């Protein structure tokens, strides 16, 4: 079996990629309008939505970057994952019902449409669309980079492609992604999310079992090794310390409801009452899949610090290296497919909302109507966006040496800081004003991009995204409280009463 390891792994991944392409072709026949392309005609059932929401949350950031970050820094990044119960609670308490109602009464196709319906402000719509576009580039680059790194590890084990470059892997990854997104739009995206979600849950559960058995003493031996080497890494706040961990909890726990690729899916369900099933399925699916994040990271760290394994050239190689060295070939095959699943399920969502921003939202803000032949231009925009993100991924890797997880945290922070106040609070508080919304989005973008571009290190590892989100929330509520409450359109007013 061991000599067949590489063919089995490559075969599993190829089968998975083939399934994605077939789903894309199938979905193409069901995609007849821009509404089908962007919001799947608001006709999806609870199982599809819950798998789509959780698999889009976890992404390459969680499946590749997460284990890498635990390997590099210990438990700090686990705060990004344990906050999921709070994150989904805020999403479903505050956003899921109202965004679905607004989507139906105003026939909206995107989050900026919802923001316009709520505030009646073209500036707020434009800024929301601009934020989505900027965040998508960062986040999509994360996914493409993660996918290329995994692909490169896979090819490295073959004779023919042992020396394939990261550039070539980025091209291959982008092409597959673009194919099924361009052909099938959001319908392909959510149905592949279903496959991807199932693969991720199975992968997560099996990897935990494998990781727990790498050492004879199980996870207790892992903890003992790490405690003997200083111990802070296996204690709850990890090596980056208390404030890094707690500000990530804030940013990821309260920021989930501002992630456009997630809340947009809350507009797509058939019935609002389905939310009662969607929430628990989403939370539990996420938890099982996210166990890979923790278990692989700490086992790889213990192997290296305990002088059992060789140090990794890059922390992002933690998950691929673990699978190649310690997992049974069949399991490695399934989990490698799971890694691709995690990455692609998020990337396709980003391509979709990014394309919507380009062909629908920004033109609507600037000239009062979206582009003609919206479906055609949505497909063109998807290709263009993927190309730019692929270039950004290569730049980030070669020029900045940025880790997948940190690039992802920047993307998450950009969305959370700009959109949480405007969407999560704004849909539940009639006193929120357009001026508050514009100030919140603008301030968050300025803070996030200033810190990122000038590479400012905030003391105690405090997350820049957290600082931007805290500032934008305070500005949003503060400015709105100082202003006179604006009369809402009758339909929105009635929706907010329910």
């Amino acid at each position, binding site marked *: 079996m061991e000599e067949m390891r590489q063919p089995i792994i490559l075969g599993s991944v190829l089968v998975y990629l083939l399934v994605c392409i077939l789903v894309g072709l199938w979905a193409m026949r069901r995609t007849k309008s821009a509404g089908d392309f962007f919001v799947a005609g608001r006709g999806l059932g609870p199982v599809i939505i819950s798998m789509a929401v959780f698999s889009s949350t976890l992404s390459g950031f969680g499946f590749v970057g997460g284990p890498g970050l635990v390997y590099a820094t*210990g*438990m700090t990044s686990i705060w990004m994952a*344990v*906050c999921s*119960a*709070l994150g989904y*609670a*805020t999403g*479903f*308490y*505050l956003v899921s019902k109202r965004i679905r*109602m607004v989507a139906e*009464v*105003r*026939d909206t196709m995107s989050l900026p449409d*919802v923001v*316009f*319906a709520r505030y009646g402000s073209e500036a707020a719509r434009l800024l929301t669309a601009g934020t989505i576009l900027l965040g998508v580039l960062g986040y999509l680059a994360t996914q493409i980079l993660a996918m290329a790194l995994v692909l490169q590890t896979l090819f490295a084990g073959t004779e023919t492609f042992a020396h394939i470059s990261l550039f070539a892997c980025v091209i291959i990854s982008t092409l597959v992604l673009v194919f099924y997104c361009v052909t099938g739009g959001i319908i392909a995206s959510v149905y592949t999310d279903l496959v991807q979600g199932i693969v991720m849950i199975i992968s997560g559960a099996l990897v935990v079992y494998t990781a*727990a058995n790498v050492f004879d003493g199980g*996870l207790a031996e892992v*903890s003992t090794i790490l*405690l003997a080497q*200083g*111990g802070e*890494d*296996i*204690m*709850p*706040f990890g*090596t980056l*310390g*208390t*404030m890094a961990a707690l500000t990530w909890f*804030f940013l990821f*726990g*309260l920021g989930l409801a501002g992630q456009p690729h997630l809340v947009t899916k809350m507009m797509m369900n058939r019935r*609002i*009452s389905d*939310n*009662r099933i969607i*929430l*628990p399925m989403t*939370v539990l699916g996420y938890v099982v899949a996210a166990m890979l994040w*923790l278990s692989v990271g700490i086992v790889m*760290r213990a192997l*290296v610090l305990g002088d059992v394994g060789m140090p*990794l050239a*890059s922390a992002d190689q933690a998950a691929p290296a673990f699978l190649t060295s310690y997992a049974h070939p069949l399991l490695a095959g399934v989990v490698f497919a799971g890694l691709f699943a995690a990455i692609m399920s998020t990337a396709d969502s980003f391509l979709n909302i990014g394309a919507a921003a380009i062909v629908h939202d920004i033109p609507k803000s600037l000239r009062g109507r979206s582009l003609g032949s919206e479906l055609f231009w949505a497909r063109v925009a998807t290709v263009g966006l993927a190309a730019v993100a692929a270039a950004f991924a290569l730049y980030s890797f070669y020029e900045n040496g940025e880790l997948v997880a940190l690039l992802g945290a920047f993307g998450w922070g950009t969305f959370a800081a700009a959109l949480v106040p405007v969407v999560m*609070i704004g849909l539940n508080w009639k006193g929120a004003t357009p001026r508050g919304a514009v100030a919140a989005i603008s301030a968050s973008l300025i803070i996030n991009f200033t810190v990122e571009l000038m590479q400012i290190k905030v*003391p*105690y*590892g*405090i997350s820049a995204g957290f*600082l931007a989100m*805290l500032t934008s929330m*305070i500005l949003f*509520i503060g400015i709105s*409280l100082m202003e006179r409450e604006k009369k809402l*359109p009758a339909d929105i007013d009635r929706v907010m009463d*329910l």
Partner: protein
Amino acid sequence: MKPIHFVFLWLLASAAITGYILMSDVPSGAAGMAHESIAELKVGGDGAARLATIGRAPFYFQISTIFLGVSLLYMGVSEHRRDRRFRVLMAGGTVFALFVWYKLYTGYEAYLATGETDLVFGFPVPTAWLLGGVWGSFFVFDLMFVVFFRDYFWPAEDEAAFEALVAELKTKPKAGDA
């Protein structure tokens, strides 16, 4: 005071604690140090020394975050649906989340003071509180959503009112361009 005022209050509290931390002296290795021989690996160093200048500020910061989170969740239920039972449920969930946080943080402080900790489910005690407790304490709110969905989140009357609104809008020109 309305829920939005509580949200604003907890945001200001978080900002004040963050400001205090940012203005304090930063000990060396406050956010970890590079491992002396292994590339890409960070170590934590002396955990107690890292907290020397900010004391228990992180403990209070997380309390503020818990109250902020619960205040936001409270806003998610329409005002006229927030009955006594709902308030008791939210208060109970908050107390549980605070209890878990207290156990986690004091367990960590005890480890910093003694250098010793027991293992539970393969992890040090404070870490076990993080993995099961912190997640579980907020999962309580997810369960509330499922169990009381028809009482607080989508009652039959609201569903009927929404259907009436949609039917009404279908017979009229749209209220505005989305």
